[in-house]
Every structure is written in C-alpha cells, then in structure tokens.
C-alpha cells in the first residue's frame, strides 16, 4: 500500500466565474486521521465531492493508492475503497436501517441473505443494533449520522471521507461518536474528515488542513494550526490575529 493513500494534486474547480477550489494539494497518509477545516463556504464539501467523484475537476489530479482516479465515476471509486458520508444525510428513507446498510454490504455480498447478515454486524459496530428494523426515516439526527457512517463502512472502504459527521449532535452525542471514529483507524482505515467541532478535531486528528476561500492556507497539528495567524484571520477576519495578540499583551 502506498504511504499516502490519497493524493490531491493541484486541484482547481470553477463554478461559473467563481474559483471554488484554488490549486489544492495535499496528501493523506495511510492509516491516519486527517481533518479538513475552514470557515463556511471555504469549499470543504466541494473538495469531498471532487475526491468522491461527484464533481469533476477543472484542473489537477486525484490519486488513490497510486492510481489516477480523477475521471472515474463515484461507483468505481467506491469499489476501489473510497467511501463518503454526506453532510446532509441521504438515507434510503423508505427502507429500514438494516436494509440501508445492506445496500452497502451488497458491494461484496451477492446474496441477499449474506448482505443482510453483514449489515447486522456493521450496525452493531456503530451502535445501531437496537434500531435494525426501524425505518430510516424515523431516526434521530444522531441515529441518522450513525446510519450514514454505517452505510459507508458496509462497503469495506480503505479511505473514509466523513463530511461533518458530528454536525447537529449535542455534546454527549459527540462524546459517544468520537471513540467510534477513532476505532476505525485501529481497523486499518484512513480517514479524511471535515468538521467544525474543535474538540473532536483535537481529539481525533493527527494532521489538520485549513481551507479558506478554496485555498489551503495552513497545515500541521491541531495546536500548530490553531496558533497560525492566517487561520485566525480566516475565521475571524482581517487583522484579528494582531488584535488578539495585542489584546493579550495588554492584559
């Protein structure tokens, strides 16, 4: 396996005249958790859509496990082992939780019975065991997020793209989710996650990328990135970093 499971090389994306992603380049090392953070509108979900194949790039390449997947459709990437969750959950509303997950399991299980059985296991691993028969439409936000995760896990991915999997969860729900995510790397998975919840990022991410206005403006550990004045300005506005340090030196 390559040292970097995912390499994004000089990817740019235009929406009409708007440059949404500006020459983004980074690598995600195999077996690690990398967080992609940035203010709203920075382009995080756009990047995810590009990596998972839902949006074409206007420039640059996406490499997965050494192979150039830039022009491959989403289902092909899924078969290679790239799974994603959606920021706005996309359950198969008319199906039960187990049937939802089974759709994922079916990628490797042809038989319906085997897929449903495999779905049971995946559901247990994310704590959805009690809701296997519930219609997906009746889940709470926390449950829907777990289902989103379970479905992605069901295709046995090696690269997992988590798009704000903690959004909408209250603090105790977040505390419950964090170990679930951490445990995934123990199983050999590589994770790229976007998040706004800083406590989760500091707890989980070994490497952090900061995206602002389509450009990656900082990289490092969570501590390094939080101290970076460019990052502070991206979130709080021009001059904020200076003002903060000036304010703290007067205190």
């Amino acid at each position: 396996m390559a040292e970097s499971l995912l390499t994004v090389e000089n990817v740019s994306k235009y929406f009409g005249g708007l440059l949404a992603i500006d020459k983004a380049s980074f690598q995600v090392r195999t077996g690690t958790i990398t967080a992609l953070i940035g203010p709203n509108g920075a382009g995080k979900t756009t990047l995810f859509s590009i990596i998972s194949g839902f949006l074409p790039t206007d420039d640059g390449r996406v490499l997965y496990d050494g192979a150039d997947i830039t022009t491959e459709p989403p289902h092909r990437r899924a078969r290679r082992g790239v799974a994603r969750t959606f920021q706005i959950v996309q359950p198969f509303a008319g199906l039960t939780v187990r049937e939802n997950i089974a759709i994922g399991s079916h990628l490797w299980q042809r038989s319906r019975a085997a897929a449903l059985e495999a779905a049971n296991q995946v559901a247990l691993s994310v704590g959805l065991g009690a809701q296997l028969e519930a219609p997906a439409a009746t889940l709470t936000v926390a449950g829907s997020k777990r289902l989103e995760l379970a479905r992605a896990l069901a295709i046995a991915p090696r690269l997992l793209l988590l798009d704000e999997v903690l959004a909408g969860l209250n603090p105790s729900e977040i505390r419950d989710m964090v170990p679930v995510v951490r445990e995934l790397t123990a199983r050999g998975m590589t994770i790229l996650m976007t998040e706004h919840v800083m406590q989760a990022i500091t707890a989980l991410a070994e490497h952090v990328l900061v995206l602002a206005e389509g450009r990656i403006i900082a990289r490092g550990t969570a501590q390094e990135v939080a101290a970076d004045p460019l990052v502070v300005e991206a979130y709080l506005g021009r001059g904020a970093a200076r003002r903060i340090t000036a304010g703290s030196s007067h205190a």
Partner: protein
Amino acid sequence: MKTYWPIVLVVVLLAIVPFVTTSNVVLNFLITTLLIALVGQGWNLLGGYGGQYSFGHAAFFGTAAYTTAILQVQYGINAWLGLFAGIFAGSLVGAVIGVLCFRSGLRGSYFSLVTLAFAEVLRIFSSVTPITGAGVGTLIKLDLRPEAFQFQSRVPFYWIVLTLVALSLVTVRAAENSRFGAYLVAIRENEDAASALGINTFAVKLAAITLSAAITGAAGCFYAQYFLFIDAAIAYGPWISIDALLAPIVGGAGTLFASLLGALVIKALGEATKLLSGDAPGLDLVIYGLVLIAVVGLAPRGVAGVLTALFRRPFRAQPEGDNG
C-alpha cells in the same frame, strides 16, 4: 427472503376459474384484466421499484405487437416464434431508450417526458409507414389452430395470459430477493447515495428498463394474438401508456401484486361505469382519472398499502421481519 407461495396461491386460484364458469363474459373480463396486469407489471418494475416513471410504455407494447403481427402477416413466420421475436424487439427498444436516456443522466419528469415523446414518435411513424399498414393497421389472418397461437375457445388464451402473468410475478419476486432488486430500490430512494455505495446506476437502470420492456412486450404480443388487429393508435396510443402506470399505482407501486390488484380495480370500475352509463365513450376514462387523483391524494400506497395497513394492526407487537 420473500417466498413464492403467495404467487402460487394466487395463480392456482385464478387457474380454477375456467373450471368454475364457462361464461365468455367472465373469461373475457379476466383475460383483458390479466393483459393489463401484465402491461403494468413491466411498468411496476421500472417505475414502482426503480422510481423511473415512464409515460411511454406503449413504445414497448406496440413494438412487440407490430413485430409479431408483421412477421406473421408479411413473412409467414410462426406466431409462437413471433411471440419471442416480439418480446425481443420490445426489449431492444427498451434497451435503446434506456441507453439514450440514462447515459444522458435524464431523471424525473424529464425522463417521463422523453419516454412519452418516444412513444409518440413511434405512433406517428407507424401511422404513415407502409409496413405497418399505415392508417389501416395490420390484421392477422384468422387461423384457429394452436400452432398458429389462435384458439377457438377463450380458455387456452386465458391459460396463456395467466402463465405470462405468473412468470412476470415470479420474475419480480426473484428480483426482490436479489441484489439487483435491492440496488434498484436504492436508486429509487436516492440515486446519488446509491452510486456512492458502489452501484453502477446506469447498468442497473438499463437492466430494469430492458426487463420492463420485455414484460410489457409480452403483453403486446398477446394482444396481437387475442384481438388479431392493431393499428398505430392501439399499439402506441396513450391509452396503453396510461393503463401501464395506472394499474400499478392504484395497486400500490413497488409491491409484487400491485399491477394485478390495480388492473382488477380499474377494470371492475370500467365495467361498472359501462353498466351505469351505457357505452358512452369517455366516462370510464373520467373515472380512471379521478381514481388516479384519489389514489395519489388519499392512498399513495394504493390498494396494497390499504390492505397491509388493515392487516398489520393486530400484529403490531411482533417484529416486522423482512416486510414479507
């Protein structure tokens, strides 16, 4: 896993009918009902399970009907071979339309409109081109021999259409129990999420429309043999495209017996209106239109939904299992 016993039960019950009555009225009613059920079962696979609402299923019905008719009339081909040729031709049209529409990513209402346009193109074309008899239509010569797929009595016709319906039920149930069926439903529920899970949505939809066209095409061939006359309006007319979707929607689109239940309801309604109002054209279709609106508005899961709601209640305490 869903079992095949309900199909066996229904088919056996229906098979008994000719032993219970010799009334031609009853037989004719059931034959036309089963015919519509067959047409609709094809639609049900693509529309009910797959969520792709075709408004032009006549394209498959008519192509199959014309194929078998023309092969017999102009080339002297045996009618049974014509049946297979017709089904094949219908599926081919399904595959072509599928490739064109799904390759382009046509979805939703646009897909419905394009299928309607295809059916219209075929209708206009067949109403002027000589091979189909143009405005006059195609008449299959009366030849009451079983080898020619024509029978003196209605009973053999009944067995045949019942067999075709049974086969279509078995096919759909098999799909329900297979990965293909699961993938098809996933596409209906959320096509993007489906492709994120590794589903080649184009391939699945293409297979669905081809199979759907084959089933509806079989109905077209049967129609040709039973009525011995088709023209552009019959083969490709809106009436068949409407029946194709009306039956399964009334019955509960996306369930196994939707088309059969729905066909029974609408044909029964049709007969009832004829009894009450005489043969004035149009009234039965008015009723159909009202039924469609009523079902969509009041009972979106159709007859099947109403029945399951009625029978599920006493069993609320038990786990739901596989929605068998």
